[in-house]
C-alpha cells in the first residue's frame, strides 16, 4: 500500500486551476454520445457530452460537481482526448489517465481521479452498443 506524496504534491496549482476554471465545461446540443455517472461513495458526479466526426472526437464537454481531483481530472481529460480517435480513447488505460493527471493519487482517491474516463468510455460504449 503506497502512501502518497503529501497534499502539497496533490493540490498542485494546475489542479486547483482546472478545478476552479474547468476546460470544456458545459454541455453540447445534440451530442453523438452522452453519459452521466456518479461515484456513489462520495457523491462526485460527472456528465460527458461528445461530438464525433468520422472516427474522431470532435468536441467534448463535461458538467459535474465533486472534489478537486475528480473535476480537475475530468477537465484535463477533455483536453487530452479532443482530436483523438474513438478507438484510441476506448483503449486509454487508467494508468495513462493518471499519468496525464501528473500527480500521485492514493488508493482511496483513485475513483475520483478515474470517474471522468469511466463516464467518457461509458458514453462511447453506449453509442456503439
Amino acid at each position, binding site marked *: 500500500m503506497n*502512501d502518497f506524496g*503529501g*497534499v*502539497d504534491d*496533490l*493540490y498542485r496549482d494546475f489542479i*486547483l486551476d482546472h478545478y476552479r476554471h474547468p476546460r470544456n465545461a458545459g454541455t453540447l446540443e445534440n451530442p453523438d454520445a452522452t453519459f452521466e455517472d456518479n461515484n456513489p*461513495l*462520495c*457523491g*462526485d*458526479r460527472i456528465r460527458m457530452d461528445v461530438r464525433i466526426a468520422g472516427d474522431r472526437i470532435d468536441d467534448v464537454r463535461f458538467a459535474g*460537481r*465533486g*472534489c*478537486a*481531483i475528480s473535476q480537475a481530472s475530468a477537465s484535463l481529460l477533455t483536453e487530452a482526448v479532443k482530436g483523438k480517435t474513438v478507438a484510441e480513447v476506448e483503449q486509454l488505460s487508467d494508468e495513462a489517465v493518471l499519468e496525464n493527471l501528473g500527480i500521485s493519487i*492514493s488508493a482511496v*482517491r483513485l475513483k*475520483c481521479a478515474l470517474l471522468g474516463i469511466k463516464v467518457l468510455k461509458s458514453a462511447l460504449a453506449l453509442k456503439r452498443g
Partner: protein
Amino acid sequence: MSARTLAASPGLSDGDVARIRVDFPILLERPHGKPLVFLDSAASSQKPLQVIGAMDDYYRRYHANIHRGVYHISELATEAYEEARRKVARFIGAASAAECIFVRNATEGLNLVAFAWGRRNVRRGDAIVVTEMEHHSNLVPWQVLAQETGAALRFVPVDDSGLLDLTQLDTLLDGAKIFAFTAVSNTLGTVNDVALLAARARAAGAISVVDACQAVPRMPVDVQAWGCDFASFSGHKMLGPTGIGVLWGRLELLDAMPPFMTGGGMINVVRLQSSTYADVPARFEAGTPAIAEAIGLGAAVDYLEAVGMDAIHAYELALTRIALDRLAEVSAVKIYGPPFEHRTGVISMTVGDIHAHDLATILDSEGVCVRAGHHCNQPLMEKLDVPATTRASFYLYNTAPEIDVLIRGIEKAKGIFGIA
C-alpha cells in the same frame, strides 16, 4: 481556554480522559508522521485493550462452537456468549436478555424487522412512515418493503434547522403500520425525542422501529423508557468489535414473528419437508453466531458502564460546545444542523467551496480523521443542497486540544484553496 471549559463541565476530567486514552493503543499511531486525531467515531469507534483482550482471551483459552457442545470449553464459550447478551440487555434496559438478538450490524437488525415483521404484517394500502434524516440503512429496507407489499412510504420532513417537523405527524401516521426513525442523526447530530415519537406511533397503531446506532454509544438508553417496539444498533460504534450488532425487540412481538434466516441453531424439530423453530432469541440467530464478537461487545459494555454513560454524554456535549464555538470563529466554515441544545457530538460542515473530500484529504495530512461525503444520507444531502459535507465526531477519548488541530487543518485547507 479549552481546558477551563472542560473542567467546568460535568462528565470526564482531563485526568479521566488521559487514563482512558491509555486503553486505546491506536491513539499512539502517527499517520503521515502526525499524532492521530481520530474524529470519526460516528462512523466507527476505536477499541480499548479490554475489548481486544476479551476476544483474544476467548480465542486463546476457550474458543469452541456454542450451544451444542457438551465439553468444558464449549460450556465456557456458551456461557460467555449468553453473559454478553445479558450485559447488553441490562445496558439498554431490556425487560429480558431474550429480547436482544445478535446480528452483524444495525443494518441487519433493521432488515430483520422489515423481513420478519414487515412481510407478515404490512399490506397494500398500509403506510410506512420514516423521516427525511434517515441513514440509508433505515430507509432502503422500508423502500423495498413498500415496493414489495404495495404500501405507501411517507416522510416526516426535516426543517431548515435540521429538526424533524412534526406538524403533520398525525396525518402521516394515519394508516401506518410502521414508524421507523433515528434516535440521533448521524449527519446533523440532531437528537430526536424518541419517547414522544414512539408514543405517537403507538397512538396511531403503528409499531416504532428506532435506529439507535448513534444513541446507544453516546447517551444513556432505556428502551422501556423510550416505549418503542424495536431498536437496532451496532457494536463497532460503541467500542465493540466489527461483525456484531443488536436488534432489541419487545418479547411479544419477537415471539409472534417467523424466522428471518434459517438453518442450524434456530430450529426445534427438522423433518425433511418442514421444520419447527426454536424460541426467541435463538430463532433469529441461524448458524454459528459471531461468538468472539458478542464477547467483545460485552466487554465494551463493561467499559462504557465503568466510565458511565452520563459522564460520556456530558463530556461529548462539552467537546461539541467547544468545537461549535471555535468553528464559529473560522471564516468560510458553515455548520449544518440544529442549535446546540438539540445536538450530540456530531458536526457536519462545509468550508467555502472546498469539496468535503479535498478537505478530508488535507486534514488527513495533519493526522486528523474525519468523514467526508453523503454519510449514507443522500436524500438529506439533496435537501441541504450540498454534494457532501465534512463531519467531525467526538467520543470519550477525544480532547479539546484535538479540536485545535482540527481548526489548524481547516486553516491549512483554506490556504491551499486560497480562501480568506
